[in-house]
């Protein structure tokens, strides 16, 4: 159990910059999710912490120890691979016992610890089997057991649930969270599935093209995305982004979204005054649809394009000018495609981004 710290870590593969100047701290005992699209550098980040890759520049610390040049076998990390990487020529028991045998622990202690962790992960009946005789979910648990049995200081998980069906995923997700809290191991969990990240993690690191986009609690990342990438990546469906103009009304800056003009209060209007254009964003689940503009709401006129029915809710896609906008509504709401409606959003739920820097203007110092 240890704190993991990265200081300006970069990793290049030839001309490809897989990670650029990453500075991060993973607190002792915390559960952090690394969230990003395919190819964003998540696995690279994990392998750097495990010691499989050496950083091209920067330093990595476990607590006070500088581990930058320490080989993986000295780091005491547990790693669960995306494809599990069980040893096919060993039984489940031998797979789990392997890290302990390497440490030359006494036989009875190995046996005790293997059975303990097998019980924890409900794989006691599988111990005599070979990996090829297991289902994906069972293999996943074995891989987890192998990572946990050596009581690692840091547990690294690379999309461990991506090969499982949706039901099993939710089940194991819950077990994983409980397990991590019980054991208190510093855990770093890589995923491109945001619902996993939001459900599991104390903290989320959003990464894109090798650069950290935002670090925050699930709430922060959801409610106050730092830039357009995060806004457009988090949430399902993600936030709506509508280009808008800044116009002056009675001496203060207002936002013109199509025909709708919204004039915010003091601190915000002062910030907006510095821009000619902004991108307005709001979440599909924060908007409602109505025949009329609503009181105390920002109402935007739009034309219904399609309706997707998902059972517990419907997703209505509308066009604001040429920009598609999604709104999540009750299953009973099924407007006709082609009809004109108003999208009503509470002003507090609106977010504004600078189109140049793509930053949320909330985060811009005045």
């Amino acid at each position: 159990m240890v704190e993991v710290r990265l200081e300006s870590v970069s990793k290049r593969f030839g001309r490809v910059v897989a990670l650029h100047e990453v500075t991060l701290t993973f607190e002792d005992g915390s559960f952090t999710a690394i969230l990003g699209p395919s190819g964003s550098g998540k696995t690279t980040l994990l392998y750097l912490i495990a010691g499989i890759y050496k950083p091209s520049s920067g330093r990595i610390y476990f607590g006070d120890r500088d581990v930058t040049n320490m080989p993986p076998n000295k780091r005491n990390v547990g790693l669960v691979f995306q494809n599990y990487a069980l040893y096919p020529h060993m039984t489940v028991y031998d797979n789990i016992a392997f890290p302990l045998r390497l440490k030359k622990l006494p036989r009875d202690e190995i046996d005790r610890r293997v059975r303990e962790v097998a019980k924890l992960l409900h794989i006691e009946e599988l111990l005599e089997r070979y990996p090829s005789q297991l289902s994906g979910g069972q293999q996943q648990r074995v891989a987890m057991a192998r990572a946990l049995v050596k009581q690692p200081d840091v547990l690294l998980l690379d999309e461990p649930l991506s090969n499982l069906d949706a039901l099993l995923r939710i089940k194991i997700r819950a077990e994983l969270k409980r397990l991590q809290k019980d054991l208190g191991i510093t855990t770093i969990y890589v995923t491109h599935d945001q619902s996993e990240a939001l459900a599991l993690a104390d903290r989320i690191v959003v990464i894109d093209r090798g650069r950290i986009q935002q670090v925050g609690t699930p709430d922060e990342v959801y409610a106050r995305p730092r830039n357009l990438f995060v806004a457009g990546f988090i949430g399902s469906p993600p936030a709506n982004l509508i280009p808008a103009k800044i116009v002056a009304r009675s001496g203060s800056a207002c936002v013109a979204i199509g025909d709708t003009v919204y004039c915010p209060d003091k601190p915000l209007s002062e910030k907006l005054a510095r821009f000619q254009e902004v991108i307005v964003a709001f979440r599909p689940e924060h908007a409602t649809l109505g025949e009329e503009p609503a009181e105390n709401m920002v109402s935007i006129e739009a034309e219904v394009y399609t309706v997707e029915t998902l059972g517990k809710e419907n997703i209505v896609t509308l066009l604001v000018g040429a920009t598609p906008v999604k709104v999540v509504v009750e299953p009973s709401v099924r407007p006709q495609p082609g009809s004109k409606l108003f999208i009503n959003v509470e002003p507090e739920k609106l977010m504004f981004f600078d189109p140049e820097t793509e930053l949320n203007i909330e985060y811009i110092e005045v």
Partner: protein
Amino acid sequence: MKMAGRNAALLFFLAPAFILIALFYLVPLAITVYVSFTDMQNWSLYTLRLLPNPLFNYARLFHMMLYDPDFVKVVYTTIVFTLVTLAFNVLGGLGLAIAVYLMEERLSGFFRGLWLLPRMTPVAVYALLWYYFFLGSRDGTLNAILMALGVIDKPVQWGTDPRLLPWSAWAIIIYVNVLVGVSFGMLIFYSALRSIPWEQVIAARVDGASTLQLVRHILIPSIRWHIMFVTVWQLLSLLTTYAHIFLLVEWGVVDRWWSSTWALYVFTTAFGLGGGGPSSTYQGLAAAAAVILALVGAGLGLLALRLLGFRRMIVPPKGEL
């Protein structure tokens, strides 16, 4: 009807292989067995008649094993040469493959190329190289080097000096064969190692394995089937190959009998040895020796497969094929 069609198809696909096997294996085998029952000499067809006692040549070989000092040398040489060369070829090939596998890519390519050189060199050229190297005169490379270094003051007859026999002759033929043979194992083992999923190797590292532990617990077990295959293959081919040794014996750089393996004995008995070799050739006797060699090879091959658990390694396919 369906059954008949199936058989016809089977026949169609298997026939070419059957014909080839029959033509180039079964027929020569039958001829060899027949010749071994005759007293054929000097390739004279007049002598190609069944002996009154067809097993006479076999009895004679058995007798020679007990009483002919030269033939006893052949037997010892065969056993020592086969086992020691086999051990070097398999273990050396394994060691090289692992070393090359753990090396950086660019270095590894160079080393693999280097070890393939002897195999790519024509046998005669390669044998000539070592002929000059071990030559007993002061022109021999080894002698020249050692004399220049002052280790010896007059040339040593490395392969023929009675005081050094049989060890020096054995060392030379084993050395020359290992240098060629080791690359076979190296190539097979290396490509097998490369096909181990990278994550498994990394997983072992993360689990705490040192390089030695990685080799012992992951790399070697993962390629055990290949190790078995190379062992059996090399055992059988070492029992039957003689090209390199033949040239070294023919050119007189090593002692004839302390360098003759059974296979070479078969060859020289049937075809004679140039230069100072015997003038008569004995095809009947050679054929009997060849039949014994084939039987021993088949027996050892089956035994090895059984001992190494060939059955267990052929995993039944998942699902129905």
